[in-house]
């Protein structure tokens, strides 16, 4: 190790990285580091770094341009979400769930509301079920917009253009969500036994028109990047997640489906009205960076299909069970419930324990990003640093969910 490049203030993660390098150099045991050379540079990426999409910190051991080791450090966005639940009534906690995985607030809220409904045994009117599916799928499209846009932006200024196109289209969806819920990202829209408001007049028609546009959007994205030889060579066969990895690391969501694992909770453990809806699982064969991008774009189309079907099938009627509108306190009987739903990033679960009081006794998240993050070091090792950035982007991490 050159003294010049030894970390000046070794903190825990830096010290660990340094330790691994030294251990590899002394013992010759390089199994952990995939062939260790002596001239290694430990590079601290983040928490302030343009490629980490938030405050993820990666302590990267570089051998020239090649990444030899990655130590992810999380916790910079920790806001005590789980502890907060214990001092909030069930109603008061709904807006906080929005802020865990903030790119898909509707999906998160739904999971929480569903868990409480399971605890308290609350029925949901049929119209509200359809509205919930519509909102969740709209939010899934918006979330994939961000995922695809920021991932391509990691590759180049061309991707920056792509990011602007995706964000432009995402705005249209956010406008719809704002009309219905009153907010663009932190919705606070779901209620126990239904949703807060019925859809405003004319909303269904506007939504229908927007969903008809979705194929045009995806065609545009594809034309922009998929015919580009440089884009292909940067993404194909990079960062392959094998199916064994998917099982070993419990990878879920588009990342698993890109490896050809047909795991989608909407299909494998259906909830709400999903069994009545006709949609395809978007699978791919190679599990590389390109496939993960492609699966996300495909899923936008499927989500649009689901929304259109819901708009057709939605009956009239109440959107929340009347008796639950007031008072704003519910006290579920003692017990526990675990509900997992298909979030845009994978299986988003909430485990909730009630002791019969006004507050949850304990609440625990199973966040897909946190689980997917654990595969990151394995995927990045042995790749060029530019690839590592692309791989990180393709895994699509949201730090609000990871740190909670």
């Amino acid at each position: 190790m050159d003294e010049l490049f030894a970390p000046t203030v070794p903190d825990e993660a830096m010290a660990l990285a340094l330790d691994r390098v030294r251990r590899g150099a002394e013992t010759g045991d390089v199994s952990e580091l995939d062939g260790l050379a002596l001239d290694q540079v430990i590079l601290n990426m983040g928490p302030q770094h343009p490629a980490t999409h938030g405050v993820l910190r990666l302590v990267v051991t570089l051998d020239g341009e090649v990444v030899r080791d990655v130590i992810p450090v999380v916790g910079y966005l920790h806001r005590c979400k789980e502890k907060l639940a214990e001092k909030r009534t069930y109603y008061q906690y709904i807006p906080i769930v929005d802020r865990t995985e903030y790119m898909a607030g509707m999906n998160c809220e739904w999971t929480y509301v569903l868990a409480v409904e399971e605890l308290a045994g609350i029925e949901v009117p049929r119209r509200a079920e359809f509205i919930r599916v519509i909102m969740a799928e709209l939010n899934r499209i918006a979330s994939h917009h961000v995922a695809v846009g920021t991932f391509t932006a990691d590759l180049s200024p061309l991707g920056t253009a792509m990011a602007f196109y995706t964000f432009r289209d995402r705005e249209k969806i956010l406008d719809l969500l704002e009309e219905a819920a009153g907010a663009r990202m932190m919705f606070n829209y779901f209620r126990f036994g239904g949703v807060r408001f019925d859809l405003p007049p004319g909303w269904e028609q506007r939504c229908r028109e927007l969903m008809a546009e979705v194929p045009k959007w995806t065609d545009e994205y594809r034309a922009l990047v998929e015919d580009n030889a440089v884009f292909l060579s940067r993404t194909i066969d990079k960062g392959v997640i094998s199916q064994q990895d998917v099982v070993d690391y419990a990878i879920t969501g588009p990342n698993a489906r890109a490896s050809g694992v047909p795991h989608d909770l909407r299909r494998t453990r259906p909830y709400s009205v999903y069994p009545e809806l006709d949609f395809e699982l978007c699978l791919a064969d190679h599990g590389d960076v390109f496939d993960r991008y492609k699966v996300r774009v495909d899923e936008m189309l499927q989500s649009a299909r689901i929304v259109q079907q819901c708009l057709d099938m939605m009956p009239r009627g109440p959107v929340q069970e009347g008796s639950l509108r007031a008072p704003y306190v519910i006290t579920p009987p003692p017990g526990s419930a675990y509900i997992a739903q298909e979030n845009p990033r994978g299986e988003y679960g909430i485990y909730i324990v009630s002791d019969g009081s006004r507050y949850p006794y304990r609440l625990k998240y199973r966040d897909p990003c946190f689980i997917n993050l654990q595969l990151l070091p394995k995927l990045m090792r042995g790749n060029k640093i530019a690839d590592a950035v692309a791989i990180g982007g393709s895994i699509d991490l949201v730090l609000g969910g990871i740190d909670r």
Partner: protein
Amino acid sequence: MDLFLDILRGLAAVILAYSFVFISALVNIVFERRTLAFMQDRLGPNRTGPQGILQSVADSFKMLGKEDFAPAAVDKRLFTLAPIMVMIGAVAVQLVIPYTKGWTSQDLNVGIIYIVAVTSFTVLAILIGGWASHNKYSLVGALRSAAQMVSYEVPMILALLVVAMAAGSLSLNDVVSFQSGYQWFVFYMPLTFFIFWIASIAELNRGPFDLPESESELVAGYGTEYSGMRFGMFFLNEYAGLTIMSMVTVTLFFGGWEGPGQDLLVVYGVSVIPFVWFMLKTYALVFALVWVRLSVPRLQVDQLMAFAWKFLIPLALVNILASAAIILWAPQWKWVMAGFSWVLFLAVVVLFDPLQRRMLRRRRAKSPMLTRG
């Protein structure tokens, strides 16, 4: 007295050259930001002055007002030297460029070699700055920059040699006068132009070859530790480089200042209209550079090197050998050259991308498909 006048004249020339660099950089920054904004479906800076044209003036005042700060760990002397040095290339190149009919500061008889020599100063400054910063991002960026420049200067020089052979001179004025009568080199050696242009984009550290400062990996590459006007010098040089390199390209391949109405307006023996033509051609090329930057994703380091050594340099070698043979032996060599160059150029342009994609598709078909679980 004569010596005094000479010094005065030299000073005036240096000040002119520096102001040209600064002004063209300021213009280019706004030009690029607005063009990118237009292509990315957004507005871009449009508040400072009409249509935002004063944005970069405001930005440079902001940078001048910042603290002249150097981190504790840097090598102070080199850290200060690098931003001063970085401008040398852009300023010195202007010595030999024929701006218009009757206005070349110094018509060197080794002009083309001189250009190659002085533009290399930029990489030296980048390397010094990256090393002196004592920052790993800077160092990686600087080393990438050095590797890239060394690789791409080879095809660039090979392309320039073809121009020199055809014109029979290394002087830029001779090159321009050889192209007079609208016999621009780009018309009958497009392949040479193509090689030179790609190499010049790499020399400029611009997308898709902007690896030294790829912001998604290395934050700002060699400039990570620089702030205030020191950073401003790097930034201005990069954008002035757009104009300077385009001026060189125009001189070598697009007939320099040539255009209709050459002698309409002559002030003190300097024609004004050709200067307008010169700048118009230059900015057409600057626009093309901005366009390319937006349209092609950034290459990876190994891909960048492979492109230079496995594709561009062999192509340049074939080009220089064939061109030399044609110039030496073929009667009516311009026509033969045009035939050869256009055929190869079109073949490269038309076939490169589909072949590349086909290769990738094949590799994908061959790569192990994951079995369905």
